[in-house]
């Protein structure tokens, strides 16, 4: 077994030839540096500008208001996510393993508080907003649910005109004022700031604004136009005509084919497969059969053709 030609090889005792390793390294570095400079000069690099909540709510006011509502009524992606943001669902599972749930909600996000109520509380008070917030904060959770449900029921008839979000209901308590003020706050740019400054003055954590953005359709629509969706093999793509992370081809491939393309647990399944395949790649030298492929395919005869020729083999 250990005498297999795929494992053992006798140390080389044959002829040597001069080989200037430092010169080789220097030449390689210079060639790569020149090639890099050339490619950078000719093709530059992509830099599609960031999306702001202000831009989103200005370009797609209804989508923003509907997303804000989904944070309130608990139907948004974040609200229903599970770990690490909350305990709303068990999250994805691989057979009996709910890995995310086991590790817990370590980055707690309460969509009602973090995306709606807290930012509104940061706003300069207006009589209408102060009244609405007081009404909301003083209400029982059953009362809040009743208001939000009433708003949700008519949200399909939501309109946006003259900077105002309107729905045809009078049974939603403070919710119309809250949604509308959040919309105006977003369009002024204040919500971008409010979402990142919840940790104080300095910040480098964009979890909240990114989750909020991702709950809407606007970001996804832009990504679809740029061919970046997961279903478009987007993981390996870059904006424009730039090459992307081509090395992710196998990872993104699995998402395109059944059963993963329709699985609710696709992420953990694909990760499981990729972990396993990475382990296989790592252990190639120890896996009988796999480690014999080089000997069977005889590609090495091309690489060492001079050697075999000189041996008369």
């Amino acid at each position, binding site marked *: 077994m250990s005498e297999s030609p795929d494992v053992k090889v006798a140390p080389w005792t044959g002829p040597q030839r001069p080989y200037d390793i430092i010169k080789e390294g220097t030449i390689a570095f210079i060639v790569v540096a020149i090639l890099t400079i050339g490619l950078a000069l000719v093709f530059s690099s992509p830099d599609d500008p960031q999306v702001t909540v202000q831009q989103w709510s200005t370009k797609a006011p209804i989508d923003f208001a509907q997303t804000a509502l989904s944070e309130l009524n608990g139907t948004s992606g974040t609200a229903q996510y599970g770990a690490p943001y909350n305990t709303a669902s068990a999250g994805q599972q691989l057979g009996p393993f709910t890995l995310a749930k086991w590790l817990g909600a370590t980055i707690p996000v309460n969509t009602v508080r973090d995306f709606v109520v807290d930012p509104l509380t940061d706003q300069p008070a207006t009589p209408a907003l102060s009244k609405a917030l007081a009404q909301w904060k003083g209400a029982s959770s059953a009362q809040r649910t009743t208001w939000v449900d009433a708003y949700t029921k008519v949200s399909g008839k939501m309109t946006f005109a003259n900077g105002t979000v309107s729905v045809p209901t009078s049974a939603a308590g403070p919710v119309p004022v809250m949604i509308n003020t959040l919309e105006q706050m977003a369009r002024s740019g204040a919500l971008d700031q409010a979402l990142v400054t919840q940790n104080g003055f300095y910040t480098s954590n964009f979890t909240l604004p990114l989750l909020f953005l991702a709950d809407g359709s606007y970001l996804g629509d832009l990504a679809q136009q740029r061919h970046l969706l997961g279903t478009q093999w987007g993981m390996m793509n870059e904006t424009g*005509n*730039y090459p992307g992370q*081509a090395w992710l081809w196998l990872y993104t491939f699995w998402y395109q084919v059944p059963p993963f393309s329709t699985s609710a647990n696709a992420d953990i399944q694909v990760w499981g497969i990729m972990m396993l395949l990475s382990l296989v790649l790592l252990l190639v030298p120890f896996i009988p059969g796999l480690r014999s492929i080089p000997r069977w395919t005889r590609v090495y005869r091309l690489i060492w053709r001079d050697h075999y020729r000189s041996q008369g083999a």
Partner: protein
Amino acid sequence: MAGSLLAALVSLDGAGHYFHWHWIDISYANLTVIALMVVTFVAALFVPFPGRRSKKETK
């Protein structure tokens, strides 16, 4: 100033182009990179390495 001199000669911005065949969907940029890798690999196997002791030992 220096910035404008360093702008791209060939712009790759703008709408991307994609090769779509059944469920395969890949940008021409990535396809080019992968094709170049295969071509480079095959070339590395076949192109004679300079300074190799070829002719002397063949006889």
